[in-house]
């Protein structure tokens, strides 16, 4: 039968649409309103000190739109005007300085794409399969193009002669919000590739991502990417703040804990098909796609398994891997309609291969929360529905 959507004149083909000023700043069309950040209520006591998740199951490409990029606040997202913004550099510098927002705009600028992953991403999956969806298991990640100035240029403006030997020196970085979340970073990293960013994906940072200025610490855990950045202190040791001792440390089976686990190891996940993105078209051509990233370099390849890790096929990267940024992979298959145990395995330029859950647990035990970069399995059933499972 002929399709009435073709044979009959539709309203949109006859009447008029919105004028140019209908949405001076647009939102996604209403049909995409389920592509939103989501929260897992039982995780935290209050949304003010909590986290939500990027809808990675519904996105494609590599850039995360700011409006659905995950949020993590410790005392809520604050409103800080550019006019009220101050950045202080003090400690072991020649001249402690205060910069205004306008000052920052006058330093030479850089543009870089980096992923930001919370160290707790996939943390709920340490002891077993728990949350049913890539958004919830792997959604504490986003990937944006940042515009800003290098932290090196700001530190050099204050002068580092007073710091002496850089090797054993640190910077302590903190935010302007009520939590004033603070972290210690080795000075060598601070001088390497850390950015003081004020734009993301071409526009001002969103309030929830630290407007007007945040720190970008490429490849390292998201908690170090201080939002509402207000102070940088050059020090001769780490502060050992709450977020680098009681949190973001990895508890081993024997009760000891690993600290300073800053680099986010190579990791990947199939975003579709996945539990929130079932196969609805039946057998035949199927696009298997997902994301891969590494804090130690660029993604050089991703392998996909449909049989729970017995055999692997190299997937195609949407574009060559970028240093410390998300890579998109595709595997185009002809699905025969039978069950799949779908996995992906990332490889990076450092030669690291994403481990299985069993491999990780063998080293770290079951009591960790942070830095779970294990291979994820989706059980895709014959009806196209997918579920988060663990396999032997």
């Amino acid at each position, binding site marked *: 039968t002929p399709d009435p959507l073709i044979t009959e004149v539709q309203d949109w083909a006859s009447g008029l649409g919105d004028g140019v000023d209908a949405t001076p700043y647009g939102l996604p069309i209403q049909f995409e309103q389920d592509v939103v950040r989501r929260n897992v209520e039982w995780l935290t*006591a209050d949304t003010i000190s909590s986290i939500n998740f990027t809808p990675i199951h519904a996105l494609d490409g590599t850039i995360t739109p700011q409006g659905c990029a995950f949020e993590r606040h410790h005392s809520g997202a604050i409103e800080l005007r550019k006019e009220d913004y101050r950045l202080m550099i003090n400690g072991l510098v020649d001249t402690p300085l205060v910069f205004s927002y306008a000052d920052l705009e006058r330093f030479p600028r850089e543009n870089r794409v980096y992923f930001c992953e919370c160290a707790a991403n996939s943390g709920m999956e340490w002891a077993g399969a728990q949350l049913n969806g890539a958004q919830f298991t792997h959604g504490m990640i986003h990937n944006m193009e940042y515009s800003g100035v290098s932290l090196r240029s700001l530190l050099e*403006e204050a002068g580092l002669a007073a710091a002496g030997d850089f090797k054993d020196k640190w910077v302590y970085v903190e935010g302007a919000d009520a939590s004033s979340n603070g972290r210690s970073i080795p000075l060598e990293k601070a001088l390497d590739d850390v950015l003081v960013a004020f734009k993301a994906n071409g526009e001002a940072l969103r309030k929830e991502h630290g407007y007007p200025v945040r720190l970008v610490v490429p490849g390292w855990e998201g908690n170090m990417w201080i939002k509402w950045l207000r102070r940088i202190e050059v020090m001769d040791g780490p502060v050992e703040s709450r977020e680098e001792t009681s949190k973001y440390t990895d508890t081993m089976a024997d009760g000891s804990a690993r600290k300073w686990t800053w680099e986010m190891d190579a990791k990947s996940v199939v975003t579709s098909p996945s539990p929130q993105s079932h196969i609805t078209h039946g057998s035949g051509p199927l696009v298997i796609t997902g994301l891969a990233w590494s804090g130690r370099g660029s993604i050089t390849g991703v392998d996909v398994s449909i049989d729970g890790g017995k055999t692997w096929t190299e997937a195609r990267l949407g574009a060559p891997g970028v240093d410390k940024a998300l890579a998109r992979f595709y595997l185009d298959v002809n699905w025969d309609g039978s069950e799949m145990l779908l996995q992906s395995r990332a490889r990076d330029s450092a030669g690291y291969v994403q481990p299985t859950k069993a491999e990780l647990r063998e080293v770290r035990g079951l009591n960790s929360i942070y830095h779970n970069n294990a291979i994820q399995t989706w059980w895709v059933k014959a009806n196209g529905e997918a579920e988060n499972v663990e396999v032997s």
Partner: protein
Amino acid sequence: GTYGLGRPALPEEIAAWNIDVSPDGTGLPVGSGDALTGEEVFAEKCAVCHGDFAEGVDNWPKLAGGQGTLDHEDPLKTVGSYWPYLSTTWDYVNRSMPFGAAQTLEPDEVYAIVAYILYSNDLVDEDFVLSNETFADVTLPNAEGFFVDDRLQSEAHFWKPEPCMADCKDSVEITMRARVLDVTPEETVATEAVVKEAAAEPVAAEPVVEAAAEPVVEAVALDPELVAKGAKVFKKCKACHKVGEGAKNSTGPILNGIFGATAGMVEGFKYSKPMLAAGEDGLVWDEEALAAFLTKPRKFMKGTKMSFAGLRKERDIEAVVSYLRSFD
């Protein structure tokens, strides 16, 4: 500097922001406080979330207990069982607590609170006085419990020149399913709600703030400036109270329609006995009662669970009441 940008930071400015405390005590201000005093301060400013004995309320962090559990399943990580440095506790309480009123504590209060946390963990006696001088005498039980990232050695086998591509294992069985646990937020509900909302309101692209503010002003003819000011004042209340569409009880009851309501009547919230009794005696939250309560909560109602110290400025109270009325 290379560019001549920025200006020298003044000593007063550095002193105001440079408050971090290092493990050896560098950065501590002069001051002191004992555990018993700390118990009182803690009861007033911390217990609403962390419990009278630092045992934690609901999902809020437990600060005491857990010693000897780090090698067990689900270890309990507290100041006593896990935190390596006392400086971390002092620094965190001083810079980030109380939740919603950060950086309002005097140094002596911080010393007292930290002394009480030590006491709650059976690490000091009740007459123990923590000061910038006794600070170095305290070593936390898990001080030696941490080691620096050794992944390059202990996980060196994850660097593989040629990962397995075929015949990597003999058999594969499903060993665990997420659906069995059933703890995933129900997404279909959220999706349906969004779609319905979109259908009912074709101008979905309007900024949400405007949509919420407009009916408010029309409904009760409140001074919009005062309501806006009240929204700012309400930030002090937000840690415990939710208001507006979709608000739920948390540490405090939701405040939708609180103006003109009888005290202690929000469904599903566990009030203190005095609050319930006041409601039964007919206490209604009118302008006067709210103002009295918000000025000094615990003077107005002895025994209330609300640990808030009170709003000093009359204008703030007026504003926050206007703001709350906008949710009638």
